[in-house]
């Protein structure tokens, strides 16, 4: 229901370690109308220019604290608050080339009162500087 706001326009950039790009990151919000314990965030999947990155390559950062998607599954304390901007960090040797990229983001949330998972999807053209 807040799908169009999932990808935040600002903050798309490569991430470097020791001067070498080891991946990229972008800022994102959940598409749901309340905050959720992160154990109920089943998946956050990033696709850039048609290439979908593996779940293992993805890290979520909330308030400076990084978590793998797998670790989130059994974390019953941390919450991703309503409208809160978090960061998705994707490991990719060399990062992305500068310029325009088509970015797709798909979230799968486990909402207790729904029998099916809530899927959210956003797609935006972002410029990586």
């Amino acid at each position, binding site marked *: *229901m*807040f799908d*169009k*706001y999932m990808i935040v326009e600002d903050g798309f950039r490569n991430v470097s370690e020791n001067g070498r790009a080891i991946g990229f990151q972008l800022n994102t*919000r959940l598409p749901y*109308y*309340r*905050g*959720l*314990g992160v*154990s*109920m965030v*089943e998946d956050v999947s990033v696709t850039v220019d048609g290439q979908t990155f593996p779940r293992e390559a993805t890290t979520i950062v909330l308030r400076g604290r990084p978590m793998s998607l797998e670790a989130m*599954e*059994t974390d*019953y304390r941390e*919450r991703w*608050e*309503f*409208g*809160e901007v978090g960061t998705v960090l994707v490991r990719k040797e060399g990062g992305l080339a500068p310029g325009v990229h088509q970015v797709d983001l798909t979230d799968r949330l*486990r*909402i*207790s*009162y729904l029998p099916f998972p809530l899927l959210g999807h956003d797609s935006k053209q972002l410029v990586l500087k």
Partner: protein
Amino acid sequence: MATQHHIKRGVSLYSLQEEYFLRKLDLEGCIATCARLGALGIESIGEQMMPGFPKLPDAFYARWHQWMAHYGTVPTCHDMFLDTKRYKDRLLTDDEMIESIKADLRHAARLGCKVMRVLVSVKPEMVERCIPYAEECNVKMGLEIHSPFHFDHPWIMRYTEMIERTRTRHVGYIPDMGIYVKRFPRVMRDHALRHGATEKIIDFVCQAYEERVLPDYVIFDVGLMGGSEADRRFAESLRHIIWSNPRRMLEFMPHIYHVHAKFYDMVDETREYSIPYEEIIPVLIEGGYDGYLSSEYEGNRWIQDAYPVDSIEQVRRQHVMFEHLLATR
């Protein structure tokens, strides 16, 4: 014009979710907005606008009460959720559910709410077990009667049986006016058209809705008409949108604690496109309802892809309409 009554006006902050989500308003800003509209009853959703819920510091509650005093507002209702699927591999146990509901009751009491909204999917047995604690907290638990449920649905009947059997005064109802969708919402229709549905089929479905045809039949017919996936989804939406008789509230009035004044589309200051408040409010008055009409704007999700959302203007229009419909002669 209405006869004498004690119905009050309020807002569920759910209505301002778009503005809060985008950080155009913070919690205090939401409260101030309601106060400015003269809608003084404040319904809140801890998990939506109170980061850290359910573990909020004393300072939060102190600030909350300062805001209430400052803006002249009154806490009406806290909306609980129950994350039965918190764990990936199992549902919450009954005891865990009880603990979760108790935390919500505690929070409602600390906010100063007299009522807590119980999600319609919560099992009546769980709510029954919480009655003693609700009594202790002096908070009434109101089951939200949310579309496609209605007062005469067998699931709701289980609650009615429990209320009658226990003679509790701490379990009742919060009807969500989304159970009185008399006309198919225009915003949903237009949203479907923007997302691949076919005008001819949309019109057929809306017409069938007005005729109260069984959704199964409409869905099947849309299949025969060769509709697209979007058309089929649109037809399927009939399963979740209902019109029922507002006069059915009369029988349950002693147990109605609060009202969710759901709306999708205030056309102007006089009418909602699909929910006939001019039929609903007279029933509430006739039944002697004396709680709040708590605005619940849910139009944003149907227009945000194409139009700017102005929840405040929508709520404002609804309250002008309420003032008019509630005005005593």
